[in-house]
């Protein structure tokens, strides 16, 4: 009898270990050789408000791959349809990228983001990417050439994400969610364009809430990386002056006046000249100073235009609204801020410090 009681107590303890910790002793079959953990999903607009979900199957093994595409009205429905059409069960725990077509982006992607966020299997670190063009067709054409196209693409995004390499915008689900749901901020995503020679980085897509409104590219995108995203650029070519600035690091100081009518946006830059093909004699401090002034005005103009565009579109990816927050006072409503932001006079000021590559103050200046 005593033994029975003892065993009973132990069983209760064991049961409680699982019960209290919320662990079910019934586990899903997740043997790696029996599942196919997809690495990415590509979502685009289908007919009649439906979604086209496609991916490469089988994702990891070295078997012959093919592009699987399903037209569905719900995202998870696509996952279920995959299972019915393929001998391995699809699992989303290894998902690394979500490729969204720009048409779908313009319609809004809130529902997709919410599905991903609520799935405990999906890591919040998956990269979100906007693609211009038909991605499915592109995948089909790539299968013969590059079997691990998806993996190479993932490695590229991962490379530029780590320690802000300053080349392209990389945004993961967690960051996107934060920008989407935080007041005074709007999300942005990288945009890739499908061309014959491959997938090319085009620029950054600006979102108003969950809807894509504008894509900024070339110098605008560089400036955006510099003042907001990475605060670092490996190279900043300015064709107008035939000059390339390298290792550009920025510090941004934002100042807003008490009436919230004017904002001063000061960008301090430390850089050095990497390449110059112009006529100016850069060893001459005066000419170098002139050059600096020219670059400053050029960047100020460009940045001003960029911010102007944002004001017109009523998007605030730079999170300037945070500047209106004051201690001991109720934060401004987002709507009110956007109205204010639209009319705000924003002054841009660049201070460039160019590290001399040679001793510019030496005797050689007179030569």
């Amino acid at each position, binding site marked *: 009898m005593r033994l029975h009681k003892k065993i009973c107590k132990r069983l209760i303890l064991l049961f409680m*270990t699982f019960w209290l*910790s919320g*662990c079910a*002793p019934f*586990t899903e079959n*997740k*043997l*790696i*050789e029996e*599942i196919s*953990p997809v*690495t990415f999903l590509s979502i685009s607009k289908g007919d009649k408000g439906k979604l086209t979900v496609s991916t490469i199957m089988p994702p*990891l*093994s*070295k078997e012959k791959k093919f592009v699987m595409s399903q037209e569905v009205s719900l995202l998870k429905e696509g996952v279920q349809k995959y299972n019915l059409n393929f001998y391995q069960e699809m*699992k989303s*725990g*290894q998902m*690394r990228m979500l490729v969204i077509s720009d048409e779908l982006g313009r319609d809004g992607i809130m529902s997709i983001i919410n599905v991903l966020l609520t799935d405990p*299997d999906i*890591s919040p670190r998956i990269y979100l990417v906007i693609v211009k063009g038909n991605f499915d067709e592109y995948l089909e054409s790539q299968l013969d050439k590059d079997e691990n196209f998806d*993996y190479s693409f*993932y490695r590229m995004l991962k490379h530029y994400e780590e320690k802000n390499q300053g080349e392209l915008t990389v945004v993961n689900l967690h960051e996107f969610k934060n920008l989407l749901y935080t007041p005074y901020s709007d999300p942005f995503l990288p945009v890739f364009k499908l061309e014959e020679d491959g997938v090319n980085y085009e620029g950054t897509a600006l979102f108003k809430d969950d809807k894509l409104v504008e894509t900024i590219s070339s110098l605008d995108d560089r400036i955006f990386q510099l003042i907001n995203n990475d605060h670092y650029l490996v190279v900043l070519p300015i064709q107008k002056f035939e000059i390339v600035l390298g290792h550009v690091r920025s510090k941004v100081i934002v100042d807003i006046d008490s009436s919230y009518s004017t904002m001063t946006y000061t960008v301090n830059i430390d850089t050095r000249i990497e390449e110059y093909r112009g006529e100016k004699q850069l060893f001459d401090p005066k000419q170098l100073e002139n050059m600096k002034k020219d670059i400053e005005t050029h960047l100020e103009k460009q940045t001003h235009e960029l911010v102007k565009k944002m004001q017109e579109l009523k998007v605030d990816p730079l999170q300037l609204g945070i500047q209106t927050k004051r201690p001991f006072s109720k934060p401004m409503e987002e709507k009110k801020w956007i109205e204010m932001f639209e009319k705000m006079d924003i002054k841009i000021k660049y201070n460039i410090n160019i590290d001399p590559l040679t001793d510019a103050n030496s005797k050689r200046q007179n030569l």
Partner: protein
Amino acid sequence: MYMFWKKKQIENKLVAQSITESELSIEALKKSLVQMDDAEFVEIDISVIRKIHLVYIRTLIDQEKLNESIIKPLTKCSKPSIQDCITNSSIIHIPNFIEAKKQLFSGSILLFDSSQNLWLAVPLKNPIGRAIETSETETIMFGAKDSFSEQVEQNITLIRRRLPIHELKAEKFTVGSMSETSVVLMYIEGLTNPDFVSTVKEKISEINFDLFFDSSQVAAFLEDHQNSIFPQFQQTDRPDVVAYSLGLGKITLLVDNTPFALVAPITFFHLFQSPEDYINRWVVASFLRIIRYVCFLLSVSLIPIYVALTTHHYQMIPIQTLLVLVDSRSKLPFTPFWEAFIMLIFIEIIKEASLRMPTKTSQTLGVIGGIVIGQAAVEAGFASNVLIVMVGISTIASFLIPNYLMTKANSLMQLMLLVFSSLLGIIGIALGSIAILAHLNSLSSIKQPYFSPVSPFFRKDWIDLFIRGPLTKMLERPEHLKPLKLKRYKTRR
């Protein structure tokens, strides 16, 4: 059932017969030593009326010394007392028959002077035995090379040479009703906690068994927890380790006919300490000790983690590794658990075989084992490449633990975690680890907590726990051993 019962009755009768002997006489001895070829009865005539009887077991005594120190002097003896003639240093008076037999079988020569009716015993033990050799179980690069042998007296000598102080006590006990094995309890009086000594003495007195051929058999009777897989006595054949342990306040048991001494109380962390730790420079020694702990964790958990990840947590595997894993696992007939289980059992078989086989054949074994495990298993599709690498790493890692008994415990823990991991994944490993930790915390070695100085916590002892601090900083003996003298230096006046 009837057959067994009958047998028992016969045994009882035999026991009853052998007890009825008491009177000490040559005839009684002859009667009890009948049918023993090596029992010798010799008569030496000193004078016409005086005869000396010698009784001894030929195989147990030193024949040369017998001639030198007893027979030669006795034939020339003219003194009234034979004690004065014999040149041997120790002579024992024998009061009764039981004592006589005890002396006879421990290698003494019995002398009977019929004129004085005097029984004497002269110990002349046969010195046959191994010389002092290098330790094979605890090999080190630097440091003393001598190790214990099977003769307990010689072993005590080796310890006394290292600790030439009068406080070092050596108390002798006899255990085993048939083997009559002598067990020597050594400790330093005034330093070792008397509780340890009394605990061990009490346990030795409670031993009721017939045969003891090894110190581990004695340890089995002294241990607090017999069903545990963890050893509660440190077995060592190195006199320097024993002397160091004694100096810290531990007790040591030397068992006759065993080269392995028992040291107690020990903790779980003692199993990771090598004698070389105290010879190497402290930084190097600390590094090696940390590596040993890491290897222990690796050897216990690496394969369970592999099984957990491949069966339950594919999400946690880095995608690069997953590519390799899926590729190597795609055509295997077994699930990860069975694959790992079979490989581990196979490794155990090879380990055991290499121990039992003579050294000349072990080379063949190594080649066959290596090829079978390394290549054939993969090519035949029994195991994946990745698992072979992991089995290799965890097996080699398990060899880093200096204590051999612990290596055996390791494999069992690994198998237990393997089962847990295949059932519940990482949560299973966590539950299994909790179970192991709880068990370790409940253990004790001669009633001292097995997991100290971590729990119960002794801050100062951590200097010689996961790291081996500089000797000049280790000025106090470990607190968890509760020594009577804590300081290792002489206090200035």
